[in-house]
């Protein structure tokens, strides 16, 4: 905050003072060792700036070609680049090919060769602990991570181009036959049996008893599971209760009052969460939203006594994942927290 006044409100760079040349907040990525004093990258992939000024290219992340088609950039490079075409990620070997390895200091070269052992040419910029490859690249106006095209077909994902798939617990079981989830498969060491669960939910007619789509998301006040941010009194005061957003029509049909307590019932294992109702048109009819930053109550029971002394956050509440259901992303194995079904009753 001390040098705040030095930053230009449009370019976000400091004109003078100790932070001269830096972007406000040194935004990621800030290339190289501290000695390089890279100003940070205000806008990613900005080819209108030199890489030393926060410019950049699109990363060559997925190889150099696919099905005979070059994946490297075409007619595009960052300002002042000595390579005026696409180029792959930099390794010691690439530096050697370009003859730029002579720019490495003895110490940098020694570190790279030590890391590489028998095959030093394969040492890439990302594992070069000396930072030498990055430094030399910056000197030549190129990005160590390469210069490639963006891709719209993610061929290494189960759906290279996203297609519609009904959620495992869907409000429209009639669409499951046409838009099923991915087949069961073993991912990493675990079985991902999404399709089995989806079929079972349809067969049992769960959508009849749990007619509201439940989604979860974040609040601006809290971060992640919220243990830290709910321990910050300035933030905790702004969101003091776990709640469920429910449409006025759904609330009226259930006798739910704004600010009143409700039970949100999940479709698996009789799960339930006691939370406050926030009756609002932020959600459409048939949709409910719960934030995922709360914990410390379990199915209506206060767990404050179970925290180690002094570790309990100021604000506790039901965790939304008490009522969310089965489902794992096939690529990341992230659980399904965005779509499930629920029923809501006044408590």
């Amino acid at each position, binding site marked *: 905050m001390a040098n705040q006044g030095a930053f230009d409100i449009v370019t976000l760079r400091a004109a003078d003072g100790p932070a001269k040349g830096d972007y406000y907040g040194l935004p990621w990525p800030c290339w190289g060792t501290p000695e390089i004093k890279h100003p940070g990258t205000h806008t990613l992939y900005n080819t209108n700036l030199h890489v030393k000024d926060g410019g950049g290219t699109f990363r060559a992340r997925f190889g150099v070609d696919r099905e005979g088609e070059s994946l490297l950039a075409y007619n595009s490079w960052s300002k002042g680049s000595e390579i005026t075409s696409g180029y792959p990620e930099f390794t010691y070997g690439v530096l050697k090919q370009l003859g730029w390895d002579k720019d490495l200091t003895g110490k940098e070269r020694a570190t790279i060769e030590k890391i590489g052992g028998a095959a030093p040419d394969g040492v890439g910029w990302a594992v070069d602990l000396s930072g030498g490859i990055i430094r030399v690249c910056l000197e030549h106006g190129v990005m160590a991570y390469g210069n490639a095209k963006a891709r719209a077909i993610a061929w290494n994902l189960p759906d290279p181009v996203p297609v519609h798939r009904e959620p495992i617990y869907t409000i429209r079981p009639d669409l499951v036959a046409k838009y099923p989830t991915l087949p069961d498969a073993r991912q990493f060491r675990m079985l991902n049996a999404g399709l089995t669960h989806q079929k079972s939910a349809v067969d049992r007619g769960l959508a009849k008893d749990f007619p509201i789509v439940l989604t979860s998301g974040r609040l601006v006040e809290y971060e992640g599971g919220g243990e830290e941010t709910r321990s910050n009194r*300035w933030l905790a*005061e*702004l969101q003091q209760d776990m709640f469920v957003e429910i449409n006025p029509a759904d609330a009226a049909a259930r006798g739910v009052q704004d600010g009143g307590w409700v039970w949100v019932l999940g479709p698996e294992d009789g799960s339930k969460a006691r939370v406050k109702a926030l009756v609002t048109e*932020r959600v459409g009819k048939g949709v409910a939203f719960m934030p995922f930053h709360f914990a410390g109550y379990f199915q209506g029971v206060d767990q404050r006594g179970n925290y180690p002394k002094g570790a309990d956050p100021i604000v506790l509440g039901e965790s939304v994942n008490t009522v969310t259901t089965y489902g794992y992303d096939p690529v990341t194995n992230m659980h399904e927290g965005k779509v499930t079904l629920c029923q809501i009753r006044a408590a």
Partner: protein
Amino acid sequence: MARVKFLCDADRCIECNACVTACKNEHEVPWGINRRRVVTINDGKPGERSVSMACMHCTDAPCAAVCPVNCFQTTADGIVLHSKELCIGCGYCFYACPFGAPQYPKVTNFGSRGKMDKCTYCAGGPDDKPGKAEYERYGANRLAEGKLPICAEMCSTKALLAGDGEIIAQIYKERVLKRGYGSGAWGWQTAYRETVAL
């Protein structure tokens, strides 16, 4: 000197509550006291707007008029300050305030609600010299340091403007002209008996 004001550009406010958090942190405002708050109007409906509201430092302030002990005073900059030495916590200013700005440490305890607390435009209090005693009673005195209120400084979308009333009105006017719409300078008519002509 200039007449300072607040202006909340509701078309920019994203209800992030950073102004509220910044205010609380800057002045160590206790739990339950909200010098500034963000109110969402038409919540969930098309045309929903959020307004960050605190003491507007009114021209001819109603709080000052109804105070039984005359604890309010308006500075040369147009900032309405109140003396916690004089305040008796009667609550009249809250009833007269069009913006719900006055806050009391204890709201429902009969006998004593404690000294009223409200936004000082980051100008400390009327009694003391800037320093520890003033900080504990009124919060930071940023104006004495040549800085503007922290809420407006921290505003991530620059929805909340603070400073010379004429300049911030001009900024708002230019924004409205450039983008072609504006829902108005909320509270100005009530606080200052004037509005930003658009």
